[in-house]
């Protein structure tokens, strides 16, 4: 099968590097994809007090109207909590702030704080979602983090035609057979693999780190930056958001549980201690 021309578009958004690829699509469509990412990012960031997420976090104790997108993401977060037996918990905002992660990395390294254990509440105990509305309990705060990126990558994949790949800060989602007909070649765990109608993601404590003990991945069992014996997990799963959730779960579960968990929930996996 002859190799087809790939349109590629790279940009910075969501505090990270993003790339969109498509076969047989005009470049303008990829630009539209960037605009959509920026619009969604502005609504879902926790760093802007005017974002929809920040306004939701700032009004606990009452049912608040939410957009279809935020409702979908909050439902996805509750699903991730169940799927991970509580290891993926988006009610992590207070722990991130306590660890010093209070501003985007682009604005400077967070300041390392004294770490004190404070286990996170169960997500279903602090977050409720119904059609068009959601309620957060006082004291809780939501950071959608990687779940939002994986979810957005899946939405982009669906909107960019039948042969496309979206990479939002390492959360990948692909559809179609790629430019050569055998899949989209992506880097995963030091090797190259081919994605076909699949998602991929890496969960790592090697990046977004601001001291030996401080990094962005919070263990909900302690409320502290995770130390599980694994530093990096990459997986291929059926969707981008599922890959994100499974990679994070495996990393937090640690080296004893991760291989069996990945074998049961992923299509390929990379474990790095």
């Amino acid at each position, binding site marked *: 099968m002859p190799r087809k021309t790939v349109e590629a578009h790279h940009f910075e958004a969501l505090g990270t590097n993003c790339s969109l690829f498509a076969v047989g699509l005009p470049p303008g469509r990829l630009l539209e994809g960037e605009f959509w990412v920026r619009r969604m990012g502005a609504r879902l960031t926790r760093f802007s007090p005017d974002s929809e997420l920040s306004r939701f976090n700032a009004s606990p104790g009452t049912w608040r109207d939410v957009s279809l997108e935020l409702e979908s993401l909050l439902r996805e977060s509750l699903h991730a909590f169940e799927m991970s037996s509580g290891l993926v918990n988006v009610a992590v905002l207070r722990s991130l702030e306590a660890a010093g992660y209070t501003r985007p990395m682009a604005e400077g390294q967070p300041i390392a704080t004294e770490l004190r254990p404070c286990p996170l509440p169960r997500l279903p105990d602090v977050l409720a979602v119904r059609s068009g509305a959601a309620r957060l309990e006082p004291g809780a705060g939501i950071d959608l983090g990687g779940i939002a990126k994986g979810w957005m990558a899946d939405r982009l994949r669906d909107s960019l035609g039948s042969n496309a790949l979206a990479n939002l800060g390492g959360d990948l989602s692909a559809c179609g057979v790629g430019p050569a007909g055998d899949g989209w070649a992506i880097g995963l765990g030091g090797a190259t693999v081919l994605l076909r109608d*699949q998602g991929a993601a890496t969960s790592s404590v090697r990046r977004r780190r601001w001291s030996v003990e401080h990094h962005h991945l919070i263990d909900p069992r302690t409320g502290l930056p995770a130390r599980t014996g694994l530093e990096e997990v990459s997986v291929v799963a059926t969707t981008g958001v599922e890959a994100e959730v499974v990679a994070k779960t495996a990393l937090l579960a640690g080296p004893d549980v991760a291989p069996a968990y990945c074998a049961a929930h992923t299509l390929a996996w990379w474990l790095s201690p």
Partner: protein
Amino acid sequence: MRTVILKAGATLLTVAATALSALYVTSHLKNPAAPLQPTVLSASGATTLSAPGGTLTLGPSVQPSTVHPVTSTYAS
């Protein structure tokens, strides 16, 4: 007399059923064909590759490639 026979018969039946069950269970500790068995590495046709810094395991639906990747999962 009839009651004693009935009790003895019931007791014998119980003991026999217990003994046979124990024999069966101890000789069938694992049934590889049992349903609802979680996916395991040996059964999934997975391939494990050694790479610097970790291990990469590929299931049958993910193929390795030698071409240059267009992107990777390592942006964040």
